[in-house]
């Protein structure tokens, strides 16, 4: 459990990081950005990831924009290098984005939350990562900068499959903008141990401008479940509708099977978690 050899480089700013990425890629190397390292370092230790050059973004945390957490009108804007813990403790989120800070308690353990970054988690694209679910729930826009300039990736176009996202290997995610607030929203999950990757997790919102049902752990990437969202649109909010919504989601998905749970068990968990999350969202002031 020692990584293969790699060279280490410290980026001074975003353009420098982009330049280093291109420079090493052009030289035939396999460069990789490192921020909190909470996923990358274990993968390197198992030699499942073998970058030949690591470009450390740590210095960029000196740039206030890279770690800021702020409201910008109706949006919540988070710098790419903000840590889970900083978001968990942030006081400026407002009721529309309270679900974001509350969701952080589900992210690993305190040491992981203290090092891991928002952009790192979203770019890693784990199918159960809380940040990926939040991105779909709150219409996030992922801001990526690369040799071709800056582009904005809507969450709906971000997650493609197992650990596959729309961010290119020569790009740096500098910011994540959550464009839709939802005061009646909740995220909940099930794992056999506290702090583990969820077997299944669910994020929902009950809002005047539309309902959302997002699931993790039931497909190669986090997904919205339109069939379940349609149920929510079709009746008055309340425990019966929530149970119906959970059942519709369970019906609609085609989950994988592994030691953590069979496909049937994951369906069943999805039903439970969606129902519970909807109840929580409702109690927090979601649509009546």
């Amino acid at each position, binding site marked *: *459990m*020692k*990584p*293969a*050899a790699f060279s280490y480089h410290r980026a001074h700013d975003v353009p420098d990081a982009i330049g280093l990425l291109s420079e090493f890629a052009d030289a035939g190397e396999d460069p990789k950005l490192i921020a909190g390292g909470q996923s990358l370092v*274990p993968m390197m230790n*198992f*030699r499942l990831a073998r970058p030949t050059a690591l470009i450390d973004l740590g210095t960029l945390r000196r740039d206030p924009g890279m770690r800021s957490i702020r409201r910008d009108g109706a949006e919540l804007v988070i710098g790419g290098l903000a840590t889970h813990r900083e978001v968990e403790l942030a006081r400026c989120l407002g009721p529309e984005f309270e679900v974001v800070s509350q969701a952080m308690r589900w992210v690993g353990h305190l040491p992981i939350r203290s090092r891991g970054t928002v952009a790192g988690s979203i770019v890693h694209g784990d199918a159960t990562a809380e940040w990926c679910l939040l991105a779909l729930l709150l219409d996030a826009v992922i801001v990526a900068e690369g040799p071709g300039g800056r582009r904005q990736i809507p969450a709906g176009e971000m997650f493609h499959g197992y650990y596959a996202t729309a961010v290119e290997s020569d790009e740096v995610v500098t910011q994540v903008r959550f464009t839709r607030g939802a005061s009646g929203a909740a995220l909940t999950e*099930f794992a*056999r*141990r*506290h*702090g*583990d*990757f969820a077997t299944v997790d669910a994020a929902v919102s009950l809002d005047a401008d539309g309902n959302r049902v997002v699931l993790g752990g039931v497909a190669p990437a986090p997904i919205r479940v339109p069939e379940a969202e349609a149920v929510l649109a079709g009746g008055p909010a309340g425990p019966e509708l929530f149970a119906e919504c959970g059942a519709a989601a369970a019906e609609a998905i085609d989950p994988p099977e592994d*030691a953590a*749970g*069979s496909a049937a*068990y994951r369906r*069943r*968990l999805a039903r*439970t978690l969606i*129902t*519970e999350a909807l109840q929580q969202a409702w109690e927090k002031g979601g649509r009546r």
Partner: protein
Amino acid sequence: MTGPRVDGPRGRWVGASVPRREDPRLLTGRGRFVDDIRMHGMLHAGFVRATVAHGRLVGVDLSAVREIGGVVAAYTADDLDLGDIVALLDRPPEEFVPTAMPVLARDKVRFVGEPVAIVIGCDPYVVEDGVEAAVVDYEPLDAVVSEETAFAQQAPLVHEEAPGNVLLDVSMFDTPGVDEAFRAAAGDGCVIDLVSRSGRQNALPLETRGVIASWDDRDDQLLVQTCSQVPHQVRTLLARSLGMQERSVRVTVPDMGGGFGQKCVVGREEIAVAAAARRLDRPVKWIEDRREALTAAFLAREQRYRTRAAFDAEGRITAVDADIVCDMGAYSCYPFTAGIEPLMASAEMPGVYKVPAYRVRARAMTTNKAPTAPYRGVSRPQYVMAMERVMDRAARELGLDPVEIRRRNLITEFPYTGINNVTYDPGTYRETLDLAEGVLRDEGWCHLRDGATEQGRHIGIGYSCFSERTGYGSEAFAKRKMQVVPGFDISEIRMDTSGSVVVTSGTMNHGQSHETTLAQIVADRLGLDPGKVKLRQGDTERIAYGWGTFASRSATIGGSAVSVAADRLAEVVRTIGAYLLETRPDNVRLDGAGGVEQVDDPARRLSFEDIADVAYLRSHLLPKGSEPALSATASFDVAGDGTFSNATHAVVVEADPGTGRIRILRYACVEDCGVVINPKVVDGQCRGGIAQGIAGALFEEITYAENGEPSAASFIDYLVPTAAEIPDISVEHLETPSTLTENGAKGVGEGGTIGAPAAVLNAINDALRHTGVSLESTPVHPQSVLAALDSAAQEASNAS
């Protein structure tokens, strides 16, 4: 809590919760573990490990390994030419098949992770590069991974010499009356027939295995610094495998971060590293990483019991008939052999109950999985689980309360010689059950459980009653017919000119607080402050031989040896003191304050310093014929069948109808380990053991695919529970002093782990009582619980 409490003999220190003397060092990062040790010129080792579960070794090509910069050497089995590890039993060939475990795989590999070659380099990173560069060709063979594949006709053989993949097959008991009892029970009573299984676990010491070996020309000796529970056994086997005189090997053990049995056997890696160090004449270190620890270290626990039990109409058990298969994995461990688990289960299964007729057959099966070592509890968690499930099932069949059926069957008169020909010394089997039941009743748990169904909650209560043989002396071990028979222990004690004492014990602390508890014993025996007592362990040079720490033996056997040695030293001190006070020896006693005083005139006293001053620095003043040494040695062995601790565990669980998660609402342990030397230490042993038992009941398992690939190579897949999953655990002590040990203590190292799986599984099944489903395998996966709840809910809604 109120209830019978038998107070054991206590001294000033024994019986007190003296703060752990090892804690200041360990808690401030000043402990010294194997990996903290660095030696001049030290190299690092790693192992090329088998990637297939079963296959012939066609070729091992290390040429690319040796070309990597920083790699110093790479060896195969042929290069090192070491003696195999062979553990033997004195049993006939139809009962036991001896097999060999080569230090590095030769001819064939038998599990994923088996060491095939050793790579030595300048740092662990280079070593891992080297390991990757090895080219190993296998001719794959079908893997044996289950009872079905192992016992099938034409099954591939893990060891050619072991037909049917059976290493041990013993039918230890078939007493008269078994069949008659079943016939009678079928007519008037009940017969329980259940198959229970426990998953394969890793004992999981926080500190993985590790070793540093170095050659010392001046001492003409190989120094092996390792983390082992049994330093002398490592020395013996190392010397034999390397073909050296035993005096040319010294094994030392620094601080250890747990062992739980995984380190009470000798690892092949230790021997390979020692051989490499000898050959290279450089210190070589190997620290096992977590992936190796999970896949290639000794595993444990995987067993299957088919238990048939007969009961009369009053709920009295009339016979037990058990068929037991223990999946020992690829090799027999040294010194215990693959027989340890099936023999333990056969000998002890009737446990705390009066069983009038008993039949048992137990087999050790060999498979293409990592081999096993005796993990904390050793078969007892499994047979206790089987017996306790039998009790609950029979209670249900007969309409009895689960506590009541236990009361009718528990041994209550001692000494009691069971059907298994084991004599149980006095314990509090009935009293601990009564107290545990009282806890749940008084706190309202029984009421909550009874009313839960109406509220749509699924709450269950489970008990387990068990005893645990501790202080296995050589007589008890000899009955298992091991060729290497553990049992006694030696202690040596010295007093220096400052009146302080150094005591050496053949036991090996790896978390059990020996530095505190053995010092408490010595302090009482000599009448001095425990701060003046220093314990030494973990150095084969200090005493002639020792058996280390396993099987809950340290307080009972090691503590007794320490007691006797301290008494002998006290006698020496009193004799010299009497001479110097110019009175008779029987007119002198220890004064409890680090000296001796005259019985008829306590004002006349001498401190230990005074006496030591004469003994060492002015020995011309000693009485004629007395030796100028304040030291003593003692050995101790437990006679007969040993001494039995006992306990009752009581658990309340709730099953979540939405996820199947089992939450433990209450965990109560009432135990009796004889004289409690240090209550806080005993509490810790109980709680830690129970945590490991809960881990086995609900979380941890390493499964193997059909091709022999293990499922868990990291903590993502191996679900060791955290503090968040383990509930608060209350521990209550009763004390029935053992008459077989010097200090009245019985062992307490394993009880928690033994009792927990049974109690948790009983509670889960009680929570599912309305479903018609019974779960008999651990760990219990929440999806099984949820499936049971869902199908019952479905049936209920269909019915209405």
